[in-house]
């Protein structure tokens, strides 16, 4: 036995990190890159098959690049599109880590955005440094409560979260429609479903307006970075995150270790909901300035793919969110420049997900790129 406070040589060796299992360069970088490349290749085949000429295919991929990374405006658009996806996906990733399949981000985004809009137009004469944080907070709380309902239902009754969150999504969509058609949310004098506008004091300020006032990238991207750091810290540096991960990896062992699964479920869902709610707030306070039906643009659903793609790791989610943001921004350019249908962009996105979700597919298609054999 060694003396307390000191470690002998052998123990010291045990503290050396060998090859870290958490980060496998092939798995984390090479496979995703190849998946994108293969998705683009298949996308080209699809375009050719639908009668798009070879030059137009070439043009459209050039447009995809210039529209997402080719100029400062393109980068700004990519970041703007990436922000809500990444925020919502961080919440979903948190759920995955804890073994929960939260399909409800869409509803949480909608209600979070709605709450942020209400606070954004209702609090008049409030200085921005109070108004903006309050509006963001309202979004986070609304999302947390909405997701918390699903968490509580699971903890208390065992109702499966996939079912409850899908139902809560439907309720949220209708609820938002109802609110948008009725005072006090509806914009006075309008017959169509649209909310009052967010006051300037609650808007997320644009970051690059000193270069060009039309650059839409806003302070929400800082929120995203903070959220990535927060989720990383929560998962890997806190007792709460330890419990989340334990419950997700082996619920029996978590119970044996004295962890309270009901409590963990509610906490995970509420945190995930808060992040999704922030995504909604981010959209209305940073981009749209008000709410209208479907203002989320399906971000809550796309975020599921982003979370999967990011392997439920906060950094991975950030990278996946940026990729999706780039595909969205570049996709618009593709449509404008090369006249390719926006549906094809969706197909390419879907192809990326298929290849990412099945790393073995990438390995099997081009095995010679990899060091390791797929099997033994």
């Amino acid at each position: 036995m060694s003396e307390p406070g000191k470690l002998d040589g052998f123990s010291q060796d045990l503290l050396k990190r060998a090859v870290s299992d958490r980060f496998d360069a092939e798995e984390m970088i090479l496979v995703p890159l190849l998946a994108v490349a293969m998705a683009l290749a298949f996308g080209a085949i699809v375009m050719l098959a639908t009668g798009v000429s070879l030059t137009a295919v070439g043009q459209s991929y050039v447009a995809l690049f210039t529209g997402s990374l080719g100029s400062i405006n393109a980068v700004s658009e990519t970041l703007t599109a990436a922000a809500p996806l990444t925020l919502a996906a961080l919440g979903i990733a948190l759920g995955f880590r804890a073994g929960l399949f939260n399909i409800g981000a869409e509803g949480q985004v909608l209600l979070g955005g709605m709450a942020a809009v209400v606070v954004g137009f209702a609090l008049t004469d409030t200085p921005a440094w109070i108004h903006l944080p309050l509006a963001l907070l309202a979004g986070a709380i609304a999302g947390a409560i909405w997701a918390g309902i699903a968490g509580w239902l699971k903890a208390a009754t065992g109702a499966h979260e996939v079912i409850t969150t899908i139902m809560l999504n439907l309720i949220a969509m209708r609820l938002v429609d109802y609110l948008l058609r009725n005072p006090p949310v509806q914009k006075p004098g309008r017959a169509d479903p649209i909310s009052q506008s967010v006051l300037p004091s609650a808007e997320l300020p644009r970051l690059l307006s000193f270069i060009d006032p039309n650059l839409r990238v806003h302070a929400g991207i800082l929120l995203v970075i903070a959220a990535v750091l927060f989720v990383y810290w929560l998962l890997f540096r806190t007792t709460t995150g330890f419990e989340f991960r334990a419950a997700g990896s082996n619920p029996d062992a978590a119970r044996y270790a004295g962890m309270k699964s009901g409590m963990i479920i509610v906490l995970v869902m509420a945190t995930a909901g808060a992040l999704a709610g922030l995504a909604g707030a981010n959209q209305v306070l940073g981009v749209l300035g008000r709410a209208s039906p479907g203002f989320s643009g399906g971000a809550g659903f796309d975020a599921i793919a982003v979370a999967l793609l990011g392997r439920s790791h906060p950094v991975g989610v950030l990278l996946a969110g940026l990729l999706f943001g780039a595909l969205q921004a570049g996709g618009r350019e593709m449509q404008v420049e090369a006249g390719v249908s926006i549906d094809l962009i969706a197909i390419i996105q879907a192809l990326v997900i298929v290849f990412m979700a099945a790393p073995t597919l990438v390995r099997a298609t081009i095995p010679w790129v990899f060091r390791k054999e797929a099997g033994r």
Partner: protein
Amino acid sequence: MDIELRGITKRFGPVVANSDVNLTIRAGEILGLLGENGAGKTTLMNVLSGLYRPDEGEILIDGKPTRFEGAGDAIRAGIGMVHQHFMLVPVFTVAENVVLGVEPTGRLDHLDIATAREQVRAIGAEHGLVVDPDAIIEEVPVGVQQRVEIIKVLFRSADVLIFDEPTAVLTPQEVEDFFGIIRSLRDAGKALVFITHKLFEILEVADRISVLRGGKIVGEGDPKTATEAELAEMMVGRPVSFTVDKKPAVPRRPMIEVRNLKVMNDRHEVAVNDVSFAVRAGEVVGIAGVQGNGQTELVEALTGLRSAIAGSVVFHDEDITHASARHRHKLGMAHVPEDRQREGLIETFTLAENMVLDSYYDEPYSTGIRMHWPKVETEAARIITDFDVRTSSVFELADHLSGGNQQKLVVAREMSRDIQVLIASQPTRGVDVGSIEYIHKRIIAARDAEVGVLIVSTELDEIRALSDRVLVMYRGRVVAEFDAAAATVAELGLAMAGATA
């Protein structure tokens, strides 16, 4: 059919699992393959059954060099493997499981289950493997499931049968039956390989013994002349002691008192019925019994994982009948669970993370919600060294450890804090001889440090070696109590079978 393995070497990256292994398997003979966990037994057999391709060396069947490209080739060549974990469909019948994949079919692909049933009966009758072809797998005991696995292999016309740790899941009576079966298979001219780390079994049933250590064949033994001590030394590489050295117990005040405890199982049947006993500081109480007689539920009730419907559990003077697992842990109760992989460990977590699985929530490992990982890692390194868990780093994942090392990790975690009561279920299940010796030593050391110890085991040898008092559970009740020093195996065995003394 005779098989010869010549110079087999199998590497996984830098790890050499088998190194230049030579082995012959002969028809009408039982070859005992002995080795510690991680010695390379399973890798070697996976090479033989076509799952792995060797990096060097060759396999000769009746003198002819043969190459297996996959498990199918080995099966066609007549080599069948009975795995440690059965590969059966629980909701199918015995006959359906046996023919799965090679079903006898009639016209229009009609499944001819009547023929299958007959074939199962015929194979069963030939080798003394009595099973009802229409029984549903999940409803028959483990011993019968194993027979189904054997019939499955025979149905595929195997001449060579490989058994990977076949007795690990069996009761003592089922082990006897199993030995009868493999002897009859041998007499029918089959070649058998019996992989185990249990010495007395290999001495009883094998015709020839090969010992594997560190991926190499380190010796051969003749079961007629070899002793357990010789084989153990070959297997571990140093002399091993089988008896647990212990002074007479000095029991003090009761640490845990169980009074009229009644517990239900998952199927809402009474599993523990009116059980009362006490565990005192400084003694080891052993609970013997055939698996499934309420031991699991009893331990879960004691450790706060299952609620009791009547009776009480008192710890010192505190009634903890309804206390949480966490509260009991804080009081100084340690629990080595029955199934380390399901409950005791998180296989995708690092060793350091597993080391604090149930103590992460408090100083010194965390303050508030902040984890102090460097502190966790140094402590884990110390405990791992102290308990001789074989690994290269505390950042290794738990599923990279061999079964024996996983068990040591759990035992180390539970015993390395200041504890008052230790409740250990099957503390050495699936653990090799060297590690058993070590774990036993630590348990006795805890007893001598005035910890109250409760051991639940289906291994009578273990119960007798460790315990000061033995309680026998049968159908949820404690049916007998023995002074461990005086009790004979026969007496204990009778009580376990429910015969009232």
